[in-house]
């Protein structure tokens, strides 16, 4: 089975959800024209990243009644979508969220479980922490969503893997930093390194879509990637520029790789569990 994937590394307007929705619809149209089955947008793609006190005013619920999501749900009748947004729960807690839409329905919502609140980041001040890491079924097999700092920690991708995800869909708004004499920023090298490692260790597809553009002095470096179950890089978007990068994933590669390299078969989850319990009892 093959999946035509489109990585939509867009720049956003800070706090202007309507303008960002228009951009989503434009990229979705272009993706449709190129026969994409699934389009993935970056973290907080509907709102911009440093939303600070705008959080409450840019929040939306992924429902048919919502003035923004009704358009996206309609589009998802033709192709699947991963959208980044600020989610508000019934008790008015706000989350950095990513949702998978397909066939006019919401298949899954992930709330970011690791909120970086150090250095240039201040997410924990403005957002509630998610408390679930769950895989879910799609028409392309079982998948998982994570958002930026979630995959700077090893445990969320590991949990998705054990929960059945073969297709990991990561989104970021990663500010570029660490300019040295190298061709790539330190932040880009770090993210590319771990994504390649996850693909190799979990013998899975690792998809990463990072945004571009500027917010005040911050820039976002783009460079969306896909690594296949062998860990090989099979697609990369340009750095710093908006782009729609299309790549065909041969999902049969999962079977071929795992026949050769049975890391999933041999994973000793009970050993992990018993040792974790011992460590937590300390």
């Amino acid at each position, binding site marked *: 089975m093959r999946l035509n994937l489109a990585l939509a590394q867009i720049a956003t*307007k*800070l*706090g*202007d959800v309507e303008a960002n929705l228009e951009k989503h619809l434009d990229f979705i149209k272009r993706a449709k024209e190129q026969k994409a089955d699934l389009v993935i947008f970056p973290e907080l793609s509907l709102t911009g990243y*440093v939303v*600070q*006190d*705008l959080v409450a005013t840019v929040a939306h619920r992924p429902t048919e009644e919502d003035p923004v999501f009704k358009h996206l749900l309609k589009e998802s009748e033709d192709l699947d979508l991963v959208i980044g947004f600020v989610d508000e729960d019934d008790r008015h807690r706000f989350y950095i969220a990513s949702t998978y839409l397909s066939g006019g329905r919401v298949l899954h919502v992930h709330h970011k479980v690791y909120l970086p609140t150090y250095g240039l980041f201040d997410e924990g001040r403005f957002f509630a922490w998610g408390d679930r890491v769950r895989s879910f079924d799609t028409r392309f097999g079982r998948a998982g969503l994570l958002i930026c700092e979630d995959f700077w920690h090893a445990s969320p991708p590991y949990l998705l893997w054990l929960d059945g995800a073969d297709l990991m869909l990561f989104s970021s708004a990663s500010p*570029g930093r660490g*300019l*040295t*004499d*190298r*061709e*790539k*920023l330190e932040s880009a090298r770090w993210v590319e390194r771990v994504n390649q490692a996850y693909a190799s260790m979990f013998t899975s597809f690792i998809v990463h879509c990072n945004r571009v*553009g*500027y*917010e*005040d*002095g911050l*820039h976002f470096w783009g460079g969306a990637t896909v690594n296949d179950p062998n860990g090989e890089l099979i697609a990369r978007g340009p*750095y*710093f520029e908006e782009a729609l990068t299309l790549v065909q994933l041969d999902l049969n590669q999962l079977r071929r790789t795992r026949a050769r390299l049975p890391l999933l078969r041999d994973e000793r989850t009970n050993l992990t569990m018993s040792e974790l319990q011992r460590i937590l009892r300390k």
Partner: protein
Amino acid sequence: MLDLTINTDVARQILTGFIKSEVTRVGFSRAIINLSGGLDSALSCALAAEALGPENVLALRLPYRTSSPDSLEHAQLVIDRFNVRSETIDITKMVDPLIEHDPDMSNTRKGNIMARSRMIVLYDQSEAFRALPIGTSNKTEILLGYSTMWGDMASAINPIGDLYKTQVRQLSRALGIPAEIVDKPPSADLWVGQTDEGELGFTYEQVDKLLFLIVDQRYSAQECVEEGFDGAFVHSVVARVRRNQFKRMMPPIAKVSNRTIGYDFLYLRDWGT
């Protein structure tokens, strides 16, 4: 570890993209820069010309009667090299009446008056040219506080404020800024014979390496000494950075309400754009 070399292609792409984004998103298409004849403003000018097109950049030459003739000539070299628009306005008649009011004033006061007069011209011309003022302060001088508040520090956006002086030199060479500007001793040219390194008491080469360890690599003063830096030099630079924190901030507002600008009224400049 102590290598401040940068990839100039990446720097160029990020910084021109920054100028283009931050100027155009607020409805402008043009930039204006006080071109002193020195390296920092030459670099900001070159980046702005590349980002917006040279026809959209106005370089101001603002000499005072004691300014070095080299400064004017070097500014002209930049104008010619990057083909930007230019205007020359002598600030002597703005500056001298205030100095005459108190003829014994220090060089520092006179220098501050010149720097702030140039700021007035910059902002006035920015309105006439419908342009945003581009900053020309580098990371070294911002950290050391070697600049005039509301004078040469004043700008709408600053593309070079995260580059140390030695990195400014490296990027300037890559952008084709004429060698006589890159290679001359840096000077604010506020009085005859003034040089940055003479006034600061150390070279940029030395202090950039130290600042890089302290600021970027989070070394303690003791660890810097262990790396071979002179103890007195380390402590004087650490003190200088701390003492000048006020120059890097908006004036603190005394909080009395539930929601106060700067503390809990938090929006980026790019709010809504």
